[in-house]
């Protein structure tokens, strides 16, 4: 028994220390706010192809993307991350403005249209999602479906729709984009109108989708991957793209950036190249998230209209990023006062 005890005591440390490889260019640290279930396979594919070990840090549903951005800000002086793979371009814009990033123009970026790239090369967009409505088929007939954002103010939908917390994630992106597109006054009026119309606030897009699936609300505003996820679980829901009435819907590309002072810069560049390559975009298009590729050579998911057919909100990412920081105090108040 004594021998067992000694073995038990020593073994874990032995394994752990042996498992830790010496720091080399054979590993890379990536923070990603894209859902683990979609990002992990892509990163593992990179690992398989190059033999470079990838250390991943994921985000949780509640802190979506804001958490990692703030973590990178906090670690600015002692960067421990090499690559930031964000699920929207706003956070990388903010990080660029705060001097956390280093420019890197990947050769693969040549295939990405310019409007999805930072002109100074600090970040590059790829594979995106769109904002959609997810509606409960049992509670609404197709004639009754909401077709545009302003339908959320319609009296017939009073108390029957949900939105995720606009302080986080893609909802914050969307709201900031509206402020830029409509102007402060109209956007504020819209938000107040939502509250007056009995908006139900959820903690995340995933929760909104769940509520719609349960029938707690009739429809909600989410990203297309959240909609597809609940559809695949067999919920009685359908996806409606709110781009026909008015301004169009928001397109949110992923964005990848190199961190300034990254511990493994060479491996980081290889990872960025891979993420911008057709292979990665194809994987993201085929997965449940059905992300729309930006490289014209990659076939888009059949379940969604091609990018050319979608009416998209015009977005200047730098402007939206600034606007988002500006409206944060207002949003905090808006969220708090119910």
């Amino acid at each position: 028994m004594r021998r067992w005890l000694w073995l038990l005591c020593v073994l874990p440390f032995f394994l752990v220390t042996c498992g830790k490889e010496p720091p080399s260019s054979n590993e890379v640290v990536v923070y990603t706010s894209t859902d683990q279930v979609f990002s992990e396979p892509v990163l593992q594919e990179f690992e398989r192809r190059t033999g470079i070990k990838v250390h991943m840090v994921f985000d949780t549903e509640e802190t979506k993307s804001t958490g990692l951005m703030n973590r990178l800000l906090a670690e600015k002086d002692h960067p421990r991350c090499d690559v930031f793979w964000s699920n929207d371009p706003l956070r990388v814009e903010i990080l660029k403005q705060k001097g956390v990033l280093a420019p890197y123009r990947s050769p693969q970026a040549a295939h990405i249209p310019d409007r999805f790239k930072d002109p100074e090369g600090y970040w590059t967009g790829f594979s995106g999602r769109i904002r959609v409505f997810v509606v409960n088929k049992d509670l609404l007939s197709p004639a009754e479906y909401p077709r545009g954002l302003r339908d959320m103010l319609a009296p017939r939908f009073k108390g029957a729709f949900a939105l995720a917390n606009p302080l986080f994630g893609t909802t914050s992106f969307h709201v900031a984009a509206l402020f830029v597109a409509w102007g402060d006054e109209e956007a504020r009026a819209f938000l107040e109108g939502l509250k007056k119309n009995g908006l139900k606030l959820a903690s995340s897009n995933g929760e909104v989708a769940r509520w719609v699936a349960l029938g707690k609300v009739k429809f909600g505003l989410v990203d297309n991957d959240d909609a597809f996820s609940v559809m695949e679980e067999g919920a009685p829901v359908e996806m409606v793209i709110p781009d026909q009435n008015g301004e169009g819907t928001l397109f949110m590309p992923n964005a990848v950036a190199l961190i300034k002072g990254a511990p493994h810069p060479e491996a980081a560049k290889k990872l960025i190249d891979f993420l911008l390559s057709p292979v990665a975009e194809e994987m993201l298009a085929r997965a449940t998230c059905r992300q729309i590729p930006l490289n014209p050579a990659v076939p888009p998911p059949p379940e969604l209209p091609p990018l050319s057919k979608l009416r998209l909100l015009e977005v200047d990412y730098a402007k939206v990023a600034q606007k988002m920081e500006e409206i944060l105090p207002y949003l905090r108040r808006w969220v708090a006062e119910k």
Partner: protein
Amino acid sequence: MRLWRLLARVYFLLVFLPPLGALFLAFGKTLSLTFLKDAIYLRALSNTFILALGATGLSVLLSLPLATLLAKSRFPLARLWAVLLAVPLLFLPYQTALAWSFILPAPVLKLLFSPWGVVFIFTISFFPLVFWPLYLSFLSIPREAEESGLLLAPPLKVFTRVTLPYAKPYLLGGAGLCFIFSFTEIGAPTYLGVPVIGSEILTRFAAFYDLQGALNASLPLAITGLLFFLLERPFVKRWEIAPRWRDPRGLLFESRPFFLLGGLFLGVTLLVAVFLPLSVLAFKAFSGDFWSVLTRAKSPLLRTFLYTGGAAILAGGVALVSQPLLKEREKDLWDTLALLAFFLPSVVLAVGLIYFWGRFPLVYSSWVLLLLGLLCHFGFLTQRLLREAWRRFDKGGLEAAYLAGRGFNAIFRRIILPPLSPWFGYALAIFFIFAANEMTLSSLLYPPGGATLAVTIYTLSVNNPLSVSAGLCLLNTLFILVVVSLLLCLLRPGADGSRSA
């Protein structure tokens, strides 16, 4: 001997002082109460309080009849049922909520995704924390105290006036534990869509990296933790548990209706808390691609084993070695700090750890930070258990050994270790169960690429096929079960309470 003593002291200093000290200083420095004006925050706080209170009350109502049935009557296979009633501790409350969301039909499902559902899930997840102390205390009551009562009054009167008062401190201790765990739980309420105070703080910290804000918001939680810590001392006194497993005499209820009703109650509890969730998860997991779940879980599983196992062994080992080496006063000091760290919600503790160790890159982005977090939060369990074991150890034998002139190492190996090894085993098992099911602390402290299985379950819960989540949860439970069983088999006491090498 002096070397071991030094090492033990260094361990305690490194593990407990930095985070607790950092928290203390941070709380003192910029304490602003503006968060009290935040309506959402206040709502979450009162919600959480009521939920925890409700869950605790229900757990007590659940545990009393069950403990009476299994300890105070000749119910068949009582020990088996008691062990089965501990199984919910192997589940993440999130996984129980997940399982029940599969079981319930649509109209009732809305009730689950509401505060009622949260109270339900809390109750069936945490009631073992009330049941087991109560059960053990029922088995430990000196049978003559009850028998002298039985000669004077019928069984029910003896039960209420002799048995229950004896068990009261343990019932209260268990209820306190249940309350704290319910109060600080984040995973299940988040899934069920009910805002709780823990997730508010987590959001403030993890989303906004607003350390000061998070600390300020943690004040109510920290105060609750402190309150329990202060109450624990005089209330729960010394731990007089010495269960007489093979000798269930004393007060025994023999009535047939009691057996039948009790048996039914037991059956329903086990069904709701253990068998239904487990089988539903298994069904869901195997109806999906279980093989992919296994491959995905391989690395996190190994990491959980290493981190949690390593932490358990370290905590247990230091606790064991420090018993003969440190004076009672010093042990009191470390126990007090450990108790405080245990009752502090894990979110708060994580904030303190990051606050302090953030300046040390070697610790911050490595597994050492997670290890320190686990040791700090759960060290109390091993320390308390092994201190109790030491209290029962015959010091006379130790003195005889010293007089015989042998050195400390030999005495420790051959005199101290053998009778204490079952306790060591229990301490490791309990530490492992709690640490492996810990989500919040781990999700904040894990090194890049080094997530444990519990954290992986959490991060993967977004937009992941539910069959995969189910499979991972199932694996987590099975894994903990296997490790704990192995541990207890290796170090189980023999019939006379000692273990032969």
